[in-house]
C-alpha cells in the first residue's frame, strides 16, 4: 500500500519535471503544455524525446532505454511509465 502512494507522488513529480523541461527547451509557457498532447505536436522530434527521457532517467537515478519509451508519447503517459521504473527499486529498498 505504501508503495502505491509513493508511486502516485512519483508520477506527479515526474510530470512537473517533464513540463518544466519542455517549457525550458521550447521556450514556451508551462501552462501551454497540456499533459495529454503528443510530444510531436509540440515539435519535439525523436532525438529530443530520447534526450528528455535520458535526462529524466539520470535525474531519477534509473537506467532506461529511451527508445523503449517512444510509445509513451505524452507527458502523462511518460511520467506514469517512468514512475513504474521506480517501483522495483522502491520495493527492494
Amino acid at each position, binding site marked *: 500500500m505504501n508503495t502505491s502512494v509513493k508511486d502516485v507522488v512519483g508520477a506527479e513529480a515526474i510530470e512537473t519535471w517533464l513540463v518544466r523541461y519542455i517549457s525550458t527547451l*521550447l521556450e514556451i509557457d508551462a501552462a501551454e503544455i497540456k499533459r495529454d498532447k503528443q510530444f510531436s505536436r509540440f515539435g519535439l522530434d525523436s532525438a529530443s524525446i530520447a534526450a528528455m527521457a*535520458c*535526462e529524466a532517467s539520470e535525474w531519477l537515478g534509473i537506467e532506461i532505454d529511451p*527508445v523503449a519509451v517512444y510509445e509513451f508519447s505524452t507527458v502523462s503517459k511518460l511520467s506514469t511509465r517512468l514512475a513504474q521504473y521506480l517501483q522495483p527499486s522502491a520495493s527492494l529498498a
Partner: protein
Amino acid sequence: MKILLSNPHLERVQIRNATVAIGVPFVATLYGIYLLIEGRYTIVDLSLLAVMYVLSIIGIDIGFHRYFSHKSFRASKGVETMLGIFASMAAQGPLMYWVANHRRHHALSDQQGDAHSPYFSEHGALGKAAGFWRSQVYWAITCRLTNPALANDMTRSENIRFINSYYLSWVALGIAVPAAIEFAIYGTVQAALSGALWGGLIRIFLGQQGYGTINSICHMFGKRKYQIRDRSRNNQWLVFVTAGQSLHHNHHAYPRAALLNFDRREVDPGGWVIRGLEKLGLVSDVCEVDRAFLNQIVKDEK
C-alpha cells in the same frame, strides 16, 4: 543546459550507426582503389564523384555549418531546403545531431568534453597519433552523447524538422541520383551500380574524411593569427576540399562571420557561393566580420 548526456542504450545506438556510416563507405572506397588500379572506371564515374562531392560539401559547410549552426546569413526556404538535403547526403548525421555536436565543439573547444578535439578524449589528454585518429574518425563512434537540446532552436521550424526527420532518405537519394544518371546514359544495371559506388559511397567517404580534416589537421597544423583560447589553425591548401572551412582559425576567431577570408590573400570558395546566392536575392543579412574586434585580438606578427 547539459552539454553531454549519459545513456548506455543510446551510446550503443551511436556506436552502431556511426560504424555503419563510416565503415560501409570505407570498404567501398577500398574496392574503388582496386577498380582504379585495374582501369575499370569511366569519366562519367569520376565526374559524378566530383559534382556530388562539391554539392554535399557545400551542403555541409554552407548549410549545416555556417547557416544552421551559426545562422551567419538568412536564406529563402528553397535554399534552406536544398542546403539541408545536400548536407544530409554527405552521411555525417542528421541536421540537428550535426548542429548540436558543432555547438558543443564551440562551447568546449579543445577542452575535455569537446566531441572531436585532437588534444583530449573524455578520458584525458591524447598523444599526437591518437589525437589525430580520434579527431579525424573515431570520435563519431566513441564520443559521449551530445545533448540534442543544443539545437533546440531548430525544432521550432517545420521545414528544418522535415529535413532532419527524412535524413536516411536524403542519404539514399545521394546514392540513387548518380546511379540513375549512369543508368540513363548507359542503360545497364552494372552502370547504375557504378554510379552508386563513385557518386554515392566513395564520394561519402571522401566527404567525411575531407571535412574531417577540419577537426584534425585544422586543430593541429597550420597558422594562427589571433589570440583565442582554442587551438584552431588556418590551412589555405585545404580550402577547395572543405569549401573554405579550413580557414578554421578565422572561423573560431569570429564564428558568426559568413565569409572566412578575413584578409585579401585568403581564399574562401564557400564565401563565393554565399555571395552568389546573395546576388540572386536568395540569401540576405550576410554577417560580416567585425574588423575592430579582429584588430583587438590579432597577434603582433613580428
